[in-house]
């Protein structure tokens, strides 16, 4: 589920799949940027709460999500934060948001120095094509963030 695995797993058939999907249904979604951002204000409000006046810095956080999700019901998500995870310097929490979902909150993961490494994986629902945002709160109070776009196909033929 790490980034490397993800990229090596993208074999020729999947590239074809992406091309195919892109040339078909996804076009209609990407042509409606306003729709994909409909709930972005809700996500922004939640993110502001986490930031508490601070500014999020880029880097240190890796978000592993598929570029194209086969089905929005079950989208794999892994977050990893670069940190020594010692008593003095560790990741306290990672908060995940989806800016196009009716409720933007997805999950918060709480780590401790006993975590060894700040990596967590779960599966989430994405209502449509949108951005997934991760904010990492460090033990020194700094915040790092990253985001990734996930295209959601209207998948699953047959009832």
């Amino acid at each position: 589920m790490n980034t490397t695995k993800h990229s090596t797993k993208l074999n020729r058939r999947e590239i074809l799949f992406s091309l195919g999907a892109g040339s078909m249904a996804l076009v209609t979604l990407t042509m409606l940027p306003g729709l994909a951002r409909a709930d972005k204000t809700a996500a922004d409000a939640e993110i502001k709460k986490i930031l508490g006046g601070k500014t999020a810095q880029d880097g240190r956080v890796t978000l592993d999500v598929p570029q194209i999700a086969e089905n929005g019901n079950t989208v794999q998500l892994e977050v990893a934060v670069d940190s020594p995870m010692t008593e003095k310097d560790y990741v306290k929490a990672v908060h995940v948001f989806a800016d196009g979902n009716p409720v933007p909150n997805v999950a918060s993961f709480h780590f401790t120095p006993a975590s060894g490494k700040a990596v967590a994986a779960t599966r989430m629902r994405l209502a449509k094509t949108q951005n997934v945002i991760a904010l990492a709160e460090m033990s020194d109070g700094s915040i790092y963030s990253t985001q990734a776009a996930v295209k959601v196909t209207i998948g699953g033929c047959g009832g």
Partner: protein
Amino acid sequence: MRRGILAAALGLGLSAVLAGPAMTEQSQWGPYQVGDVRSGYTYAAGETRDMQDDDFVNPAMLWVDSGAELWETVDGAAGKSCASCHGDAAESMAEAGTKFPVYFEPSGKMMNLEQRINFCRTENMKADAFKWEGQELLRLTTFVRNQSRGKPMNVKIDGPAAPFYAKGKEFYETRRGQLDMACSSCHVDNAGNMLRANLLSQGMSNGFPTYRLKWQGVGSLHRRFRGCNKQVRAQPYDYGSEEYVNLELYLADRARSLPVEAPAVRN
């Protein structure tokens, strides 16, 4: 839908051409491809295959676990569990997942695994039959079929099964519904092509009961049949109907030699 396929053919003409060489790389899919026969696994996204590959990531294993409990659970007037007669399922059910549906002499018809389980319940355990597509029947069927995981599909289609196989084949090739499509329209004529955002597979049955992302749970092959039938706007048949059991027999033969994957994970 026809327009969809047509559009798919136009939009993906390029992909179809490019897909040619990829199809011949048979070793790429290991046991999931036998000759030209490809499991639905080979059409699934990498993330979906990852979910199936790890028994602690595959959510359908929760059904296997709870099915294992049911296997040991005494029920009915006879005071028996499955295990009372069949002992360790790993041994007694090792082939069960490969050979159903089987010809059942007392009824003079084919019987699938779900029906066999319910036959045992009503006749041997003197218990109530489990409801079709209810969680108990899904759990127990998934558990039993999982005992054959990795073994090649090996259904009998000769002898008394032959006329039922012929009926199943006829069903598969008969156009139906307002969209006037047969099973074969998608899964033979257009396997590997896109139907809107979906990549059409060969429609192999070796992974059922299957965890579908769409369902967010485990469902039976007959639920899938009903979904397909509704999709072409045809009246679906009942769970466990003779039509579907015969179709299941034909599909089991189409998937011959592919490994039992139950429980698979699919879109």
